[in-house]
């Protein structure tokens, strides 16, 4: 037991010594496989102006041999501090090359004048003039009332350029141009939620398209950022369908309709005769002719009158008026529905969310 405790104490002491030794030699193997930790270590050395020891760490991060994953932000950070360090050791050309690499990876790269020297800022400005790139910040989730609010997109060019910024549905060939002209550096553009024809952007996938052409050299660059638009509004009502022919009264009758009326009248008359004849019980004495004759005569006269009338009046003004009245009622109802829908559409809220590409 005593041997075990002694071994643990010795092990702890040797581990502490090893950690202290590593802290004293920052250019040796990093304490862990974290790119972030190595960058943090380089930053601390840079802040202590220990450039000779910071440079190897930064070079390791940007080296193709670096075995660990490096995010774009970490790579840009490494390029920036590497360039800044090289300026301090008098290697301005190399510094400009790394600044350009940082700008090509992220056009939004910039130096804080409070933290970097005028010499570093000068080399960075040179790098910006020599590099051309455009960038756009990712769209953030947003709930936008297009009547009173605007969505803001942030765009940058590394130096003065002719810029075109456009919002376009991925299903459309024409978009709404937010800006077209000369721009230099960071710039914000607002979008009112409308598309090219001044209508509210329908739900779907959209892209912010940024295209720039350098004014200093014959170079162009473009980028795009995707986002989704959804609508939030009260449910809309369906308009009533058009009246079908079966729902309307006939307004004009063909000659066969008059014949049909005559046949119906004669059919009813024949029915009355048939009932009093074949269907009645003949063994109960002579059939009464007056009762069925009354109905038969009525039906026949009705059929004949209807036939003559319809032949001379193939159009039914009453039906046409009734049809027109029904159509007008339907139009009025649909107009009211459309008004209510328009009021609801006017209250539409746009829900904007970042997206990853043209489609899923």
């Amino acid at each position: 037991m005593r041997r075990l405790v002694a071994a643990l104490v010795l092990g702890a002491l040797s581990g502490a010594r090893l950690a202290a030794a590593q802290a004293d030699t920052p250019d040796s193997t990093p304490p862990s496989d974290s790119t972030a930790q190595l960058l943090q270590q380089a930053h601390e050395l840079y802040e202590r102006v220990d450039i000779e020891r910071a440079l190897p760490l930064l070079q390791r991060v940007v080296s193709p041999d670096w075995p660990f994953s490096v995010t774009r932000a970490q790579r840009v950070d490494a390029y920036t501090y590497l360039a800044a360090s090289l300026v301090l050791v008098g290697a301005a050309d190399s510094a400009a090359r790394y600044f350009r690499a940082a700008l090509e990876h992220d056009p939004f790269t910039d130096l804080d004048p409070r933290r970097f020297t005028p010499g570093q800022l000068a080399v960075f400005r040179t790098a910006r003039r020599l590099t051309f790139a455009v960038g756009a910040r990712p769209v953030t989730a947003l709930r936008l009332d297009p009547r009173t609010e605007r969505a803001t997109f942030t765009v940058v060019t590394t130096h003065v350029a002719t810029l075109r910024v456009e919002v376009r549905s991925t299903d459309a060939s024409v978009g709404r141009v937010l800006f077209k002209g000369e721009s230099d550096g960071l710039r914000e553009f607002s979008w009112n939620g409308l598309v090219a024809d001044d209508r509210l952007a329908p739900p779907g996938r959209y892209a912010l398209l940024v295209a720039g052409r350098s004014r200093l050299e014959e170079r162009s660059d473009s980028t795009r950022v995707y986002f989704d638009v959804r609508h939030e509004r009260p449910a809309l009502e369906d308009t009533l369908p058009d009246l079908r022919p079966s729902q309307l009264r006939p307004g004009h009758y063909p000659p066969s309709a008059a014949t049909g009326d005559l046949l119906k009248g004669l059919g009813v008359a024949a029915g009355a005769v048939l009932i009093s004849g074949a269907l009645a019980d003949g063994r109960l004495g002579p059939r009464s002719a007056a009762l069925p004759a009354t109905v038969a005569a009525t039906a026949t006269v009705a059929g004949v009158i209807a036939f003559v009338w319809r032949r001379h009046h193939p159009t039914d003004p009453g039906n046409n008026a009734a049809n027109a009245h029904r159509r007008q009622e339907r139009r009025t109802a649909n107009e009211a529905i459309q008004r209510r829908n328009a009021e609801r559409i006017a209250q539409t809220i746009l829900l904007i969310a970042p997206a990853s590409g043209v489609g899923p």
Partner: protein
Amino acid sequence: MNVKAALPLALALGTTAPPAAAQWTVRGSGVVSVMRHRVDAGYGVEPSGGVTLGGELVVGKGDRLALRLVTLSGSLDAAGPGAIDRAVADVGAEVEVVALPWLAAQAGVRRRTYSTVLARQRWTTLHVGAEARLPFTETGLSGIVRGAVLPGVWVNGLDQPDLAFSVASGMEYRRGRASVAVLYSVERYRFPAGAKPSRREQIAALALKAGWSVTR
């Protein structure tokens, strides 16, 4: 005879205007019928006839379903040797379901009483049938043809008939809330011979109906 009266009533029922969907329609009608009653109970034909008065109330829900209540009463005077005067009273209920725009199925029950100086005879009948409507191009004018079998006929003192049916034919015209109709109907029974002689009975009627409807 009463059955005859019932036929016009039922016909009138069939003429109930199809109201707009989900609307309630109530139609009240007065019915005047000229009836001819003939019966042969094995002792010769006994004819009688007369005029009956009645009423009809139809309650419709939407354009598919209707309930019809009918009643009539009147006197049938003897019209031949051996016949005697009789009074008739009838009440019935019927359900109508519109299967097609021009065709409706009907089923109902009737209770009828014949009263003479000698006796009182009660009839209870069940009927199942259909009514076809033949609309003319003139709005509101229709021809009517209907028929029904009577699978259940209970008459005190008689067995079930081996033949029982009713048929009718007529015209109806509606304008606005008002309607008029004229219908000719025949109701026929044949009771088989058993301990008693064979019995045949028939009621023919010409009914004139005038109605008024209310929709809400």
